[in-house]
Each structure stands twice: as C-alpha cells, then as structure tokens.
C-alpha cells in the first residue's frame, strides 16, 4: 500500500517532515493539582497530576525521595472498534511503565521525600502517537501542579515507510508494519521495531527526525 505518494504527500496530505496540528490546554480538571489536555491531530489525551501528597501504601514510602506512580488507560470509545479491556492489558501496563520512568527521571524527587506524586493519563481519542501525546500532556500537567522538574520533556514518534522517514505517525501509518520510534527528549528513548531494517537507517532516523519533531513540539 502506498503511504507516500510520488509527489511526496502522505495519506492525510502532510509532507514527511510535517507534524499534525498540536493543541494544548491546562487546568481542565478543577479537582486535580495539575491537569492538561493535549491533542496531536485526532489523538486527544487528558492528564491529571495529584501530589505531592501522603503515600497511600506506607510500605512503599521512600525516606529520601518522592514516589512517582503513573496509570495509562484508554477510554472504551477511543479506538475505532470499542475496546473491551481498557486497563490492565499488557500494552497499557507497558506504557504506564514507560511514562513513569520518563517522568521519574525528570522530577526532582529528592526535594519531596516521603511523599507520592500520581500521574493519571486517559486517552479520549486514539489516532496513533498516544504514547507521545501522553508524555507531553503529563509534562504540562506536572508544570501546572508546580512540581519541580529538571526540564520539560517532549515526545514525538517517527517511522519509516515506502523508503521514506516519516514524522508523527497516525494510526494507519503506525499499523502499517514498518519500524517506528518514540523519542523523548532529555532522558528516555523507546524503540518499537517491527520488520527488518538496517541498523544504520534506524540510527539516522532517530537522530534526524526525533530531534526535528521535538523542536517543533
């Protein structure tokens, strides 16, 4: 299937290095300490941060730093077909872990010992790049909550189809089976590799497009 036309346009009319439209809003959830809604094209994600607050499970309390918890879940109606199990399946657990490790590396946890910071992310509409949208939304929510961080974390995905590197994949491009990469600036890098691709191509892909996309975000 052709994902990039001979003129160099993708299925939704974008150029290979063009990102989807980005929109962000903060302070949507009145009850939360910090919250944000982040949209990347049709992917819409809401994040809420509660903390620093008292640790709920005393056995997990750390005396020298804050405990960071994260939960990622998708709404039943977020994908094309209704999802039966929005939480607790492997993909959600994996993404929760990825987000937690990314944010934990950036938050200055040693400033808030014996406390807990909860980051909850809910996907309302999924059209590819949910992982990136979640990290961006979580960063904004943490900033809204006033939690001290080393730096802002931004995230973007990139892939390789029809011999062209592509930035910010939507659902159709993501499920096409080519390799794709999610790059989070600052600390953590995540690779999802399907299919055979030369290592050198992948490295170039990561360096060039990842950083390009992040500058825009």
């Amino acid at each position, binding site marked *: 299937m052709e994902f990039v036309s001979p003129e160099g346009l993708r299925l939704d009319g974008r150029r290979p290095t063009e990102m989807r439209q980005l929109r962000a809003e903060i302070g949507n959830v*009145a009850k939360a300490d910090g919250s944000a809604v982040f949209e990347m094209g049709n992917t819409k994600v*809401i994040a809420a941060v*509660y903390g620093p607050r008292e640790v709920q499970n005393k056995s997990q309390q750390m005396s020298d730093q804050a405990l960071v918890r994260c939960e990622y879940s998708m709404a*039943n*109606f977020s*994908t094309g077909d*209704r999802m039966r199990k929005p939480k607790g399946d492997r993909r959600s657990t994996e993404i929760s872990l990825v987000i937690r490790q990314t944010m934990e590396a950036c938050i200055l946890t040693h400033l808030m010992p014996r406390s807990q910071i909860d980051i909850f992310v809910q996907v*309302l*509409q999924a059209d590819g790049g949910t992982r990136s949208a979640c990290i961006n939304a979580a960063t904004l929510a943490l900033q809204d909550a006033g939690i001290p961080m080393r730096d802002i974390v931004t995230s973007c995905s990139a892939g390789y189809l029809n011999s062209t590197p592509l930035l910010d994949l939507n659902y159709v491009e993501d499920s096409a089976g080519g390799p794709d990469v999610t790059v989070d600036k600052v600390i953590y890098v995540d690779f999802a590799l399907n299919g055979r691709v030369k290592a050198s191509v992948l490295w170039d892909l990561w360096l060039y497009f990842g950083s390009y996309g992040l500058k825009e975000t």
Partner: protein
Amino acid sequence: MGLPNASEDLSSEMEVDAFRRLFPLRYFERHLAESIRPDARSLSRARNTTISMGAVASADGSALAKIGSTTMLAAIKMEVMTPSLESPDEGCVSIDFHMPPICSPLVRPGRPAEAAPVVAKQLSDTISSSGMINLKELSLVGGKAAWMVYLDIYCLDADGALFDAALLSAVAAFSNLQIPTVSLDDGKIVMLPEEQKEENSEKEPVNKEKRKLTLGGIPFSLTCILHKNYILADPTSEEESIMETLVTVVLDSSNQLVSLYKPGGAVLAYTSAVQDCIALTRQRVKELHQILEEAISGMEID
C-alpha cells in the same frame, strides 16, 4: 469548653480557609443562616450548566456535559448482534459509568470508586424506566440482527451531583446519535462507510430513512441535600461530604415522576421536603430542556 464555643472563640481569630477546613459544618451553617452558600449561590439555584455535542469524533454519538466543575464525557458506539430468543425484535442498550483516577483525589487506581457502580445502576434503571429509548427501533432484521448500543460515560472531574451530570450527558449523547448505515451482504450485516451506499444495496432495511432515534420522554434530574430545615439544590462535592442526606428526583419532559431516590442519611424526608424537592426539580427541568435544545440546534446549523 464545649465544641460550639471553641469554634466561636476561634472564628474571629482564624483565617477563613482554616476555619473552613477545621469546622466545615459550622462554616456552612453560618452561610445557610443568611440563605446563601460559599460560592454565592442561593439555596435553590443550580450551577452553570453547559452541553457540547460531538465531543468524540470517532464515536457514533457523543456529548460533554458540565455542571459547574463536574464534567462528564458520554460516547456511544454501536455494534450489530443477534437478538435474544425472548425478544427477537428488540435491540439492547448497555450503559457503563467509569470514574478514572483523574476525576478526584479520592479515587485510587486499581480500586474503583464507591460511587461508580451506584451511579451506573441508577443510570441504567432511569433510562430504561423512562421509556426514552424504544428498543424495537434498534432491530435490523427481525430475529437475526439488531443493534447493541454501548454507552460509556467517563467522569473527568468529580465535583458533586455526579448522577445529574451523567444523566444529562447520556441524554445529550443519544440526541446526537447517528446510526451507521449497514447493508445485507450474503446474509451477513456489513457496516458501510457513507460513499458506498449505492453499490452494495441489495437490501437496506431501516437504514436510509432512520438514521436518528426517536426519543420518548427525556428524563432530567436534580439532586438536593437535606440539612436540618434547609434544602440545597445541586451540591458540590464539599457540600455532599459534609451534609450527607441526598435526594435525587428524576422527572421527564412532561413533568411525570420517573424516579425518586433517597439512600438513607441522617435527615428524614417528610412529605413537605419531598414536595419541595420535586418543585425545585420542575424548575430545573425547564432550564435543562432549554440548554439541551440550544445544544442540538447548534449542532444542526453546522
């Protein structure tokens, strides 16, 4: 030094916020004595309500309802199923209410909120007994295929009056619902995107004419708190946690009583209190009906 005296002495010295946290009941009662509430509302006024239709682009029908800060997102997805043997001409509606941890600091991940299954049950009982949805309209091919309607309501911010906001968003989502077109292909029902209607039309039961559901009596509700002699309409979560006696009245658009719900509580509801609640609900139904009409006509212009 009894407790009431203690707070009296301290009230002149303390900051307002501290007094609010330490003696919440006295803080509220001081306001109620002046017939006003801390957010400057009168006792019988509900918070600012808005409805926005079509909030979720990928769903067949959706709506976002906000009452004050309480936010509910409802979305409907439809699937084709085989109807049961007892009711071969009827479809089915399944309502699910979720309270994800983002909505409130009291909800923990892994442990569903206490209020969630209660509101879910109340919602499905109210919608089925109000007769808003005629299940026979959901039938496609008698005995063989019918629509299964999945309504998912997510609470994005829990600030009191959860049932009211959830019911409002459910009703708005049903008003916004567009039934997808299907055709019969070798005895199997196949979902069609808009363009292909002409090619595949061996048999298009109900579909071309009937893309929207006809809604019967639409239910609207109002939750009130009873405290001593006061009746407070549309409580915030702070008010609900301090004064625990709630009464929820559901009326339909022709002012018929659909349901009355009072789950215990310290204050007993005598006839006069119940009648006052119903009167408040009647006023509220008019407001909500108007807001819903405006939201629907706003969508149609687009």
